[in-house]
């Protein structure tokens, strides 16, 4: 069990109104394979991923990461976990604009204190594996959306995480490029002992996943 949630709830208070982004989600996610979370826009997918990824704290309920209760983990260690054990892929890529493709991929390794030389060879390796051997020195703004998302995937893989969290990774891409990204994620879940959780409303992503969860108005419906 890599991730387990118990009655996971996240509320937002906007003035006097209360928005239920995630409500009493009970998930058990086993190691390996792709888990898709499918739901319309505004259903709570991003909120759920942020909670699982320790980017956010629940209003109530509990998240267990590798059977460890996460509510009691201090901020500093939560960052360590994110850095070492998790990789994030965002809908809008979120690459750092001033760094080259290579440097963006090296960054998580640098933050982990991996020697410069190793960073370089491994980052090149990662970028090659997503088909970007020719784009190492390019800045994000010099890359196409598809290429940006590949860099983002390479970055997410930088520290060999056991959990990849992808938030609508094909959302900004045309269908052909989207398919390429789906193939990459699929490969990934096969090759490495990696669990991929993908939030999406792309049916093609849902199709290739081993586990398909649906979410609506913050509630997991299956």
């Amino acid at each position, binding site marked *: 069990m890599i991730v387990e949630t118990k009655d996971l709830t996240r509320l937002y208070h906007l003035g006097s109104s209360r928005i239920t982004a995630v409500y009493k989600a009970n998930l058990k996610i086993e190691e390996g394979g792709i888990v898709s979370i499918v739901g319309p826009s505004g259903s709570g997918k*991003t*909120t759920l991923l*942020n909670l699982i*990824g320790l*980017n*956010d704290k629940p209003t109530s309920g509990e998240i267990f990461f590798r059977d460890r209760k996460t509510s009691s983990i201090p*901020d*500093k260690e939560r*960052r*360590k*976990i*994110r*850095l*070492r054990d*998790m990789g*994030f892929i*965002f809908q809008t890529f*979120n690459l*750092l*604009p*001033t*760094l080259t493709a290579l*440097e963006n991929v*090296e*960054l*998580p390794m*640098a*933050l982990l204190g991996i020697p410069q030389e190793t960073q370089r060879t491994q980052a090149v390796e990662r970028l090659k594996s997503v088909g970007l051997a020719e784009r190492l020195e390019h800045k994000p703004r010099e890359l196409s959306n598809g290429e940006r998302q590949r860099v983002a995937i390479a*970055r997410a893989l930088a520290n060999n995480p056991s959990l990849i969290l992808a938030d609508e990774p094909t959302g900004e891409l045309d269908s052909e490029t989207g398919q390429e990204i789906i193939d990459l994620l699929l490969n990934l879940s096969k090759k490495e002992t990696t669990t991929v959780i993908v939030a999406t409303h792309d049916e093609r992503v849902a199709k290739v996943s081993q586990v398909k969860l649906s979410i609506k108005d913050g509630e997991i419906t299956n």
Partner: protein
Amino acid sequence: MRITVMCFRNLLRRRLRTTLCIFGISLATVFIVAIGATTTHYTQVIRDMNIFFTGKIVAVPEGAMVVQGFPVVGGNIPQNIIEEIKQIEGVEAAVPMLVRFGYQIEAIVQLAPSNITIGVPYGNWSMLVGATPLEPGGNWPSERDEVVLGQSIAAQYGLKVGSTLPVKDMNKTMHILTVSGILDSRSALLLRGIIIPLEMARRLHYENPDVTWKGNMVVVAFESGLKEEEIAERIRAETRGIEALTTDLRNEIVEPLLSDIETWNAGITSVLYALSMVLITLVAMINISERRRDFATLDAIGAPKRTVLRMVVTEILFIGLIGSIIGIVVGSFSAVLFASQYTNIPLSLFLSNIFEIVTPWLIVRVLVSTVAVATLAGLVPALAATRINIAEGLRSEY
């Protein structure tokens, strides 16, 4: 290492903003340095004058305006008063001097009022200059038409021992003075000093040199063991229309003025620092708010808090440092330019002594202050940046 690279690239990416901010900081620093150096130098020049006549009493006509030992404006002292002072118990010597600020040496170039001509009776030179020597090869005047010059004036007009100097007296009669010596002193006043025999000074400054006026000040030396204040009291009591100034009194006259100048300087400097701080904070806030998503991304991939903190502070420090260095360089030259204006010492002479005006201490102080101000100004936005909620930061539109 990569953090620093990111900072520099971000500054380069926002070239106009970075340049403007650096320009703003430089501008503030230029004024801080220029005003600071100028006032420090100016007050130093005035304090310097206080080295004259220490332990002696300076007697001037009542109502004379005195800066340290020297009457700037005021009347003259006749022979009989000097005789009266000499008669006072305890007085050893009463040496009249004729001081004029801003005497013009015609036929050369007009000199600014910061020149000071001092007429001193033969043999009493040390009453004025103490142990200050002359440059090798020089002599104190032994003839009425001989003159000793300060280094700055001599250099400015290319005068050496033996050079001649035509001057006009009050009746437009020409006198040719010969330079007999150059003072070897860096005192601000002596640098611009023109020391001539009292006899010649009287001829130059009084329309009728036969008047009984001997000068406009009297330097009074007294027997050791006596109190300055005591002798001053006797002079006041036994002469009429004369003010006797002790060393302390002479300081008291000028201290309020100097401290006013320094207060103004401190006030202006504080305002400039405050403005710099506002500017830096503003730019830091803009830099941060447009990068909320980048910082949130860094947070999401697990960067420690200090990464963001370091980024913001490094950028700001860089701006502050570059700004203050440019400001110090430009400000130093401006200060020298000002100083050259108000002392009328030529720029070329000043430039070689730039650190006498812009002291290393001032430079260090400005650098340290600017860095401190920048850090302080950057720290608040930087701390705010580390508090950006990750989930919210990731959603931001930038």
